[in-house]
């Protein structure tokens, strides 16, 4: 047995110090977690919550298949948008072609003739591109939801 162990076995103070150190770490992590959660809550910036409000309000009016056009540029963020939409609009099928830019996506969605959900922040260049593309036809249903921040 290492000398340290022998010493510690008869050293309650060292043992208590180890306990105290572990407790301090646990408390520190907990405090940071509370602060982080409270920060999120204060900002109201959670994307799932924002999406819940946006998609949830429109879910009842949509048909079985929905084309999603997203202004998210990052591939991961676009995937996230698609999953969020699929979750809140379930059991509807949500389609999002990851290869298409928003304006091209809008034109493709119009060609499908299904409901369209646009995720875009009004007034942005992306939203204006989509509006221009929209001039080429009318979708069966059109809903715009604000793009949710991460």
């Amino acid at each position, binding site marked *: *047995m*290492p000398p*340290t*162990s*022998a*010493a*510690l*076995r008869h*050293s*309650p103070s*060292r*043992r*208590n110090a*180890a*306990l*105290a*150190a*572990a*407790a301090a*770490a*646990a*408390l*520190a*992590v*907990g*405090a*940071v*977690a*509370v602060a*982080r*959660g*409270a920060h*999120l*809550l204060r*900002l*109201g*910036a*959670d994307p*799932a*919550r924002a999406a*819940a409000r946006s998609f949830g309000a429109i879910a009842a009016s949509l048909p079985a298949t929905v084309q999603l056009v997203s202004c998210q540029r990052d591939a991961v963020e676009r995937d*996230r948008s*698609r*999953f*969020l939409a*699929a*979750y*809140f609009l*379930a*059991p509807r*099928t*949500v389609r999002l072609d990851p290869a298409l830019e928003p304006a091209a996506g809008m034109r493709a969605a119009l060609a499908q003739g299904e409901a369209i959900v646009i995720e875009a922040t009004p007034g942005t260049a992306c939203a204006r591109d989509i509006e221009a593309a929209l001039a080429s036809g009318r979708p069966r249903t059109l809903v715009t939801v604000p793009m949710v921040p991460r």
Partner: protein
Amino acid sequence: MREAVGLAAAVALAVAAGAAVVGARALGARGAWGAVRDLSLWFLAGTGVTSLTYPAWRLLLGRPHGVAYLAFDAAAVAVVCAAAVARRVRRSPGAAGCVGGLPPARAERLAVAAVIAAAALATAAFAVTTAAGPHGEWDAFAIWNARARLMVLEPDARGAFAPGRPGHPDYPLLLPGSVARAWAYAGSEVPLAPAVLAYLFAASGVGALAAGLASLRGRTLGLVGAFLLLGTWDWIRAAPHQYADVPLAAYLVGAFALSAAAERDGAGGRAGLARVGLFLGLAAWVKNEGALLAPCAGAALVAARWRSLRADGVAALAGGALVPVAAVAAFKGWVPSDNYLFARRSLEDVVALATDARRYLAIARAFGAGILSFGKGAATFALAVLLVAGAPLRRLSRSWRAWALGVGLLGYFAAYVLTPLPLREQLDSSLPRLLLQLWPALLFTALHDAAPPALACAPGQAPAGRVDSPAAPAGPVHVEAAGHAAEAEPR
């Protein structure tokens, strides 16, 4: 109102089913640690078993009416409870070790207060994070809760599992089944249901670790285990995100704690082995990674304890796992496999990935960095605590639990080697969660099997009946057995 009642009924029925399945012996346990241990294991076992009912009902009988489904579940749980009582499940001796021994020292009373404070902080963190994001994070809304919503809302239940539906239709159903069951009771898809389940899974993981250690190795180690898990950032963060990695980790650490209890009970531990099998099987019913970890743990247990287990012990282990493993097999056989790791792969592709040395190097680097930074340093901190306490880490090399975790980690490594997805992206998004799956079980293994002398039961508080422990100190043993306590000589 109905939502709250339905949610409460879902949890209560699961705990009752767990009590019947895990064993009436636990009813006789006394003290706070015994209650924590029993409730943790009951919730885990009961939630796992009852998660089978919703998918089965939905697929065989259609969409259930909430009240009828609740009545059916209640009747089924009542039958299971009656059968358990009728069997007069043997109450295990020595359930508490040194927990009920000497009066707690002042330092340990302070430590208990600190654990309670840490648990309160973790609960507060869960509450405020859930309030900010009640639907959880990526995996929750992309996979687990999405599957639950599809099961509940899809007019044709089979459509929920059709290829191309979101949420990986071939992923196991313990979590979606539990959420769907709670929603069916509640009468709506209330976001509180998956959040409450996520909290209880996380709490049960802490409870199984801490109370298992306290029962088997002494209160001090139980407190250290609770500290270390409550102080792990990834655990605190993953719970409100409603990730399935937390339930998987809870089932794994529950299986490890039950296996240690079965070893303590020796030849009388056959029922305990069946419980180990049940928890390992349920781990496979939570996530695909569980289907890797469960056989690793089962095989390591059999290989290490073959002499004492013999054929009937192995049969007990396999028998316990039978129902959840059969559910996994039936489900996987029924659902068209769309798993990225196995579907649509050519042998040439697999060989090309397996022979690319750069992948091995990249994965090894990521594993090293991931382990060092896991939990924002929690792993490093835990290791430091063990070293400072003089833990003989070499004892881990003789622990089958450590071997099981090591082989499981190698399995994860192999999965990364063979993945067709972009390697860096997958490592970044999944490695911390894979490490989290193993973390509570690793804590249990390190603290139980290596048993630092400075932190194990104090003299006069030796764990009861632990005959093969290299670190069991000498001294009188306090035995708490089935409702009574007695002093016994150490074995």
